[in-house]
């Protein structure tokens, strides 16, 4: 299991243990973490599952794909180190990862 910490905009932290191979989105929804809507169910179509990756982890998590970039233009003024959580699959390397959620997903 991989330890991931999700931090809401108000600072509330959720530390969860997630299996490798599921997306950050799935793991969050399953654990009842607030702050991720994921209205499209994980198909990179809605942009409501955005998370900000802690800069220390950006190299390991990796940059967004082209379709993610196209969706991330939904909003401006957010940190560059952001991903659609439905497109980030958890690996063993992510143990200790910290991600933050925006104040609003819409």
């Amino acid at each position: 299991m991989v330890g991931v910490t999700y931090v809401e905009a108000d600072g509330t932290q959720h530390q969860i243990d997630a299996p490798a191979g599921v997306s950050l989105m799935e793991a969050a929804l399953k654990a009842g973490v607030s702050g991720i809507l994921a209205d499209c169910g994980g198909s990179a179509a809605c942009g409501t599952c955005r998370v900000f990756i802690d800069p220390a982890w950006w190299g390991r998590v990796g940059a967004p794909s082209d379709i993610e970039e196209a969706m991330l233009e939904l909003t401006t003024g957010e940190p560059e180190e952001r991903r659609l959580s439905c497109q980030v699959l958890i690996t063993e390397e992510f143990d200790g990862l910290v991600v933050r959620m925006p104040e609003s997903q819409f």
Partner: protein
Amino acid sequence: MQNASEMKLPQLPLQDAAFDRDPMPFIAAAREEHPWLARFGNKFFIHGYEAIKDIQYRDANLRPAHDDVVATYGAEGTPWADYMEGMMLAQWGPKHAQLRAAMGDTFTPRNINRHIDLVRGTISDLLDEWIPKRGFDFAEFASYFPIAVLCGLLGTDISEIPRIKHSLETQTAVLSLNKDLIKDLLAGYDVLWDFTDKLVKDREVYGLQDGTMLDQLISSKNAGQMSEEDLRWTLMLLFPAGYDTSKNMLTLAIYHLLENPQYWDRCAEDIGFCLKTVEEAFRHTSTATIFRKVTEDFDYDGVRFAKDDVLIFANSIASRDPRVFDDPMKFDPDRKQTHRHLAFGRGAHICLGQHLAKTQIAEGLHQVTQRIKSPRLVGEVRWRPYLGVWGLRTLPIEFEPGEKRLQAEPA
């Protein structure tokens, strides 16, 4: 756990003109008998916000119910039935995902942002043509806007639209389940097939233009992501989808502003406020009612739905639920949107065009409120059928012409 089929549930008159005009008295009465579930004939009508949000997300248990719609019309075996059951909206699972992926980035925020000048130029040109009249039916005016934007995105000629307009309007009425439409539906299919077939063939003969949606779709077809038939059916879906929904939402937004004039000039001055107004418009009253068929029994909140049950989701009025939204019938663009509206649906079938819809409605609102001043309602407001693509059939207004301005940077 109760089987839904065995429950005593209120029947709702979804095809009644009184329901079209104002569904809320019927919904309020139905809530007295069950908090989120009612019936429409042998189908189930889900009207509670939380129930719609949760159940519509269950892609593994649901599929589109287009075969049921075809059966209602008694049109099995027709080319129109093949289209209704074969096109992207009717698919689920891997085939649906494949057809959505074939759209590439055409409906993403990035591509919509790239075409913002097209959106702004389209509404500006329309206003140039209509403002001198000093009065018109806004619903009719709006009918020329989103379709022109779509033609621009596709790279097709808007002059073709008048000859297919009736067919587009018939197709968007299909979910009204009005059996009188069947002759028009079948004839309209032939018109739209011929139109899209010519569109594709002409483009392939004369060469692909750079960066248009039509070229993206043809390239996807050439790469094996969709068949020749899928390509034409996708175009046949995009044209009516791009016609009615956004035009109805823009008309509804203007109706809200006529009833709440304190917001008119704020929309004229501030595109950011237009985006908030559009979000509130989607919350208050939107256009889509969504049909699904159960593929595998499932339980929700004490109710068991069985395989082949048909569920109708009241997305258009879900966010009027007083258990979720304070004072829900009050139109208030400044309200804190504590929950996201459900106008675009949820799950794998979430509206493909939602980003385009929001952008073009906001940009439309911004320019309309600049160039129309002192608007007043001068006739009867009539509603479209609730089932189908809901909204206003008529919104007759008169006004004073306002100033045409240079457009600012996007919000």
